[in-house]
């Protein structure tokens, strides 16, 4: 029995925390074209100025879940460096999902901003 295994409950909590946002970030990243898992993780990290580090433990389950929901499709292709990798791309349904998630995100941000700055909203 391997000793470094972590209790699964703790692990799952973290997924839940990220879940909604991560889906949106992945869909958004894939707007610019098909990408593999490693590339998606790197893109999110770079585009967030190294602030957001997506754990592979969250990324792959999320990718597979999005694919299962029909928002992504995957195929095996060569990378620019000549390596085989599994590329994901957004489906039309995925694009719609992205739009709605962005709307929800905007609402959430607005709402949180409203809570944080009650004075401004009263004026």
């Amino acid at each position: 029995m391997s000793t470094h295994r972590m209790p699964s409950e703790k692990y799952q909590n973290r997924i839940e925390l990220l879940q909604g946002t991560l889906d949106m970030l992945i869909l958004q990243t894939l707007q610019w074209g098909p990408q593999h898992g490693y590339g998606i993780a790197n893109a999110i990290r770079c585009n967030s100025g190294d602030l957001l580090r997506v754990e592979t433990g969250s990324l792959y389950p999320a990718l597979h879940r999005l694919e299962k929901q029909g928002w992504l499709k995957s195929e095996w292709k060569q990378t620019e460096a000549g390596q085989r990798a599994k590329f994901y791309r957004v489906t039309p349904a995925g694009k719609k999902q992205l739009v709605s998630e962005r709307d929800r995100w905007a609402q959430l941000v607005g709402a949180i901003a409203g809570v944080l700055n009650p004075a401004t909203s009263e004026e």
Partner: protein
Amino acid sequence: MPFWPQRKRNRRERDFDEEINCHLRMAVRDRMERGESIQDARAGARQEFGNVGLIKDVTREIWGWGSVERLLQDVRYAGRLLRKSPGFAAVAILSIALGVGANTAIFSLIDAVLLKSLPVRNPNELAAVGDPSRTGGVSSGGGRVDMFSYPFFLRFKAQNQAFSDVYATGRSEHLDVLLPNGTAATSNAGPSARFVTGNYFSVLGVPAILGRPFTEEEVRVPGTAPAVVISFGYWERQFGRDPNVIGQKLIVNGSKFTVIGVTPPDFSGDIVGRPTDIWFPITMQAQANPGHDYLKQAGVSWLLIMGRLKPGVPLAQASAETQVLGRQFFAELNKNDSTAEELQALLKKKIEVTPGAKGFSRLRHDFSRPLLTLMCIVGVVLLICCANVANLQLARAASRGREMGLRLAVGAGTMRLVRQLLTESLLLSIAGGVVGLFFAFWGCRLLLQLVSADNHVSLDVHLDAAILLFTIATAVLAGLLFGFAPALQTRRLDLVSSLKESKSGQFQGFAPRFGRALIVCQIVFSLLLLVGAGLFIRTLQNLERVDVGYTRTGLVVARVDPISGGYADKDVNALIRRLLGKLETLPGVESVSVSENGLFSGTYSSSNIDVEGYVPHTLADKSNDSDRVGPHYFETVGTPVIVGRGIESQDAENGAKVAVINEKMARFYFPNENPVGRHLFDGEGAKRFAITIVGVVGDAKQSQLRLPAPRRYYTPIQQHSPDDPVAILNFEIRTRGLPSSAVLKELRPAIKSVNANLPILDTNTADDLIGQDLDQEKLVARLSGFFGLLALALSGIGLYGVMSYLTVRRRTEIGIRMALGARRWTVIGMVLRETFRLVAAGIAIGLVLSQAAAAILEKSLFGLSAFDPLTVTLAVLVIILAAVMATYLPAWRASRIDPMIALRYE
């Protein structure tokens, strides 16, 4: 594994492995480009990636194959565990197999007798007219509402509006069949045959697999269709499935019949429990059963009627219509022949139209109560089996505490453990179910033999979808039942204490309270079954010992059919004299007499008579059983003559008309006077005649052991009139010096030597004839006894298991006690006391419940109350004895504990 989700899963698994590898490769390359060494890059990439196994697990769940895969994993794991403890697995599987097997066996009988529909087209459209528990018999008189005459059938078929078509079927008399190759068909009893109307096969929708069924045309004019259809079974037994059987000729009671068709293998007629071998056109009755021509006799009821209702006609409407037709018919029939009160009584009775899908069956009527009783019994046996396995599981779960704790610690969810345990239980129960199916198959044969040793009952019992479904359902239910306890216990697991626990995996987290409760349940159920078994066995004993009013041992009976043998009314007396003379000369025979109805033969007569000086209030006051007997009948069977005389040689054809009445009749009609010399009056109008009473004899039972003997009068058999011929002769033979079986063997040859063509219906000892009346009681008594002992054994094993486990747990305590000077006997006493607390609780609850249950049994019992103290006491003693036996070994072992070892153990 040839299981498709598994294949698909493997592909996905490989795919995902590769995806992860690609990720790692790219990460390593990027790190190396940034200047890390290859080792550092690899280690870094892996570390960054995280726990591969865990990520795979989580991703797999998302694929949705998680549950199937998990199930397979659980099953594999459970299988491994069971292989590791073969003893436990064997005992558990065997327990379940016994429980499930017993249930399946009884259920398959219930299925065959009570549930199964006839294998015909749309059986649910069929409706039976009259009483569907009748299967045969002939009754002459004013008409009946359960069986019908041929003239009634013809009118009913023509006039009824409720049925699209109806057919009639009647029992055949004994048949002697000569096969085409000249040999007699094997079987003493002769084939079972029925007369049917020409539309029988078309109404039922049964085709012929060879040849053709009857047509309505050919079965119209009496005597013109010498044809038979035979069953698949008869074709197989007597013709070896000869495909050229069509067109061959059988000689039946002297007449030639051509085989025109063979029915499909699953169809054995519409009488459940009595498969038909040969079907005759009803219009050939006079040829196949010489002397029995009922076609024109409106007063002879012998036919069962079945038909298909028109679409949308409810049973109630069909009944009402049938009732009207029946009344008209009865009124015309009885115009001349019977008194107004007899007709009124008949018209008051209802002709019922009932669902006919299950065919006609006497078994259904006779055996539904015993079979349902047995079903309850085996249900309780299954509960005991479940309790046993649950107990075994608990004891095992206790020693698996550390394993469970460890699995919890590495992140298995509680639900996952519960699921794992339930999977194990279900695996056990399904294995038990499979073994149980074999037990059931074998048990069924045994059961059928128990139901009837001489095969006068034959049932179609084979594995079918219904039975399989029942077995699976029972096994799964049992699995859930006994798997539930240990699974529930898991939820109480305390992680820390389970890991800290030191003693070789012994584990305090599992409370033994549940195990004790299970033991109490087992004792309760065992007591219930033992009390039930005791009551049934004592009932059977009482019935076997019941005074029938004559001496049943040393008495044998031979039954012949003079009418089928070609004896006209006036020749019967000569036949009687010749047979009496012949049988008297046999070795070992003390005396011989003859009677019409015999003993427990299924035949009885009754008639309405007037008694001198008695005014009847109801028709029932006039009705008395009757029998016609030969000289020395009472001396031969052993019924005492109380007043006057019995029937003597002087009461011959030309003698004065006399009668002997039984005590019950004497008390009823002549409460305070001597009946000898008084008169009975029989017949109506001009045919009315007087009979002088010459004696009173003791009451005797000729049928129905459970009921008191009815009022009965006996007249001399030789004084019969042409109106009322003697249909059957039963020769009663009192043996002396030789065993009954030896005399029995001589009977057939002796009768054949007088007339080889005289059909012999049966030869048997009075003991066996009476015994046949007890088929149901024997079945229930033997099986409930068997299941009671089985339950006791199972409970004993359960008790043994729990007590062993408890003493092992208390090893240290016992060691300390012994170190402090406790004696061996004190220790044994301590363990036994523990047992007795459980047993006493079980017995107390069991007694209360058994009294409640016994009230339901009251109807099935005879000669004892449901609260029979002897039975209850015995059952309690047996339980206590079994408990002592089951506990003694663990107790003895506890007393051998070495204090030093026990204490060091800690």
